[in-house]
């Protein structure tokens, strides 16, 4: 994440920008120039429950931060009239940092998931409890999956950017949940197999083999 560690010709180090609201606001400005109040409205429409501003003034504060860091700049000629609405656009540095931050999020998401899985698999010493939790985890994934609608569309052809955005989000969600369901099934099978092996004189009845895809289609 670049967030301006060596901004302004390396004159001084600037701490990385961690606020997801700031980055989200920058993303909206990268999409198209806006003024503060409009940005707050677009923010609400775009991010909904996923991310929220504490108030409209939060947008003004975030804009100030972005401007201070040289990530956005005021568009000339927009501070006119009785109620001036200065529009902001992303600077070249703003664009570059936003792109770098987006790519960095892949690793961040991976780290978050890894921490969660480490916490979850800490329970594997108690296999019965682990299986119970994995059942619930898988159930939650299936519920979320069921609540997801199949995106409609003409053979998947997006007709505008918003439709495309919705489709990409829906597909990412389906793939992510699908991976979690497959993982839960795999983990449960492995934990059961481990538990069976740990029991002295208890031969396997062949169920564990299903996890590895070693059997032909039935």
């Amino acid at each position: 994440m670049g967030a301006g560690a060596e901004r302004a010709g390396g004159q001084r180090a600037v701490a990385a920008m961690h606020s997801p609201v700031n980055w989200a606001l920058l993303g909206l400005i990268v999409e198209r120039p806006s003024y503060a109040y409009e940005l707050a409205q677009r923010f609400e429409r775009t991010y909904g429950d996923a991310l929220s501003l504490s108030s409209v003034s939060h947008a003004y504060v975030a804009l100030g931060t972005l401007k201070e860091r040289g990530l956005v700049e005021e568009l000339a000629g927009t501070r006119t009239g009785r109620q001036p609405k200065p529009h902001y656009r992303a600077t070249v540095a703003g664009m570059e940092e936003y792109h770098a931050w987006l790519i960095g999020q892949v690793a961040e998401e991976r780290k978050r998931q890894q921490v969660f899985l480490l916490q979850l698999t800490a329970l594997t010493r108690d296999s019965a409890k682990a299986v119970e939790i994995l059942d619930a985890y898988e159930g939650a994934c299936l519920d979320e999956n069921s609540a997801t609608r199949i995106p409609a569309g003409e053979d998947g052809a997006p007709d505008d950017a918003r439709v495309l955005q919705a489709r990409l989000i829906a597909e990412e969600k389906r793939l992510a949940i699908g991976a979690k369901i497959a993982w839960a099934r795999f983990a449960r099978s492995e934990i059961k197999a481990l538990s069976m092996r740990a029991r002295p004189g208890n031969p396997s009845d062949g169920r564990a083999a299903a996890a590895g895809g070693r059997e032909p289609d039935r």
Partner: protein
Amino acid sequence: MSLLELRNVAKRHSSGGRKVVVLDDASLSIDAGELVAVWGLRGSGRTTLLRLATGIDAPDRGTVCFAGRDLADHGDELLGREIGFCRKSFRTARGQTAIEEVIVGLLVKGAVPAEARVRAREALERVDGASLGARRISELDSGERTRLAIADALSLGPRLLAIDEPVAGVDLRHRDAVLLLLRSLADEGIAVLMTVGDPTGLTGADQSLTIGDGELCGSVKRELEPVADLSLRRQASG
């Protein structure tokens, strides 16, 4: 009473000289108008589940009932009529073109030729496949073959449609159109039971289930009572 009910079904297969548990005390209920999707790894028993649910195979233990009738006694009369099983492997000897494939299936079931032609055309239109009718089956891609398989089964007017991996090999851009088609059939009142090899195919189902290690686990979207309690039942019996 649900349209299809599997009660405490068990099924084992022999593999390499040992018994493998495919299903162990599995229960499932499907109502008319429900779309049920089952995901499992390769070899997990998802195809076996479909074969049991349609009466093609009999369980080692437990019962499978369709509209209150035990498939052990009535399977032959129901399969291919009230129960449709979609096959994606076509015997080209039955027909060179897609519509001929559907027509021959109807003729085999006793329809007269004129009626068979009308019903075949309607079934193809229903799956948005009217343009497929005159094409050779060998020319169809995976998605088109799936539509033809569904039309073939629909032409017989089933109340339950079972389909094995409808989106396997279907291009990602066309996958959702197939899933939406199955969703629309359920919305019209047909009970649809499908297996998927990729968990993304579970999206939009009323019941999303997984199968593996002999267990059938799942959740219910709507206010329908049965499968939600499967894990509880498992815990109680374990």
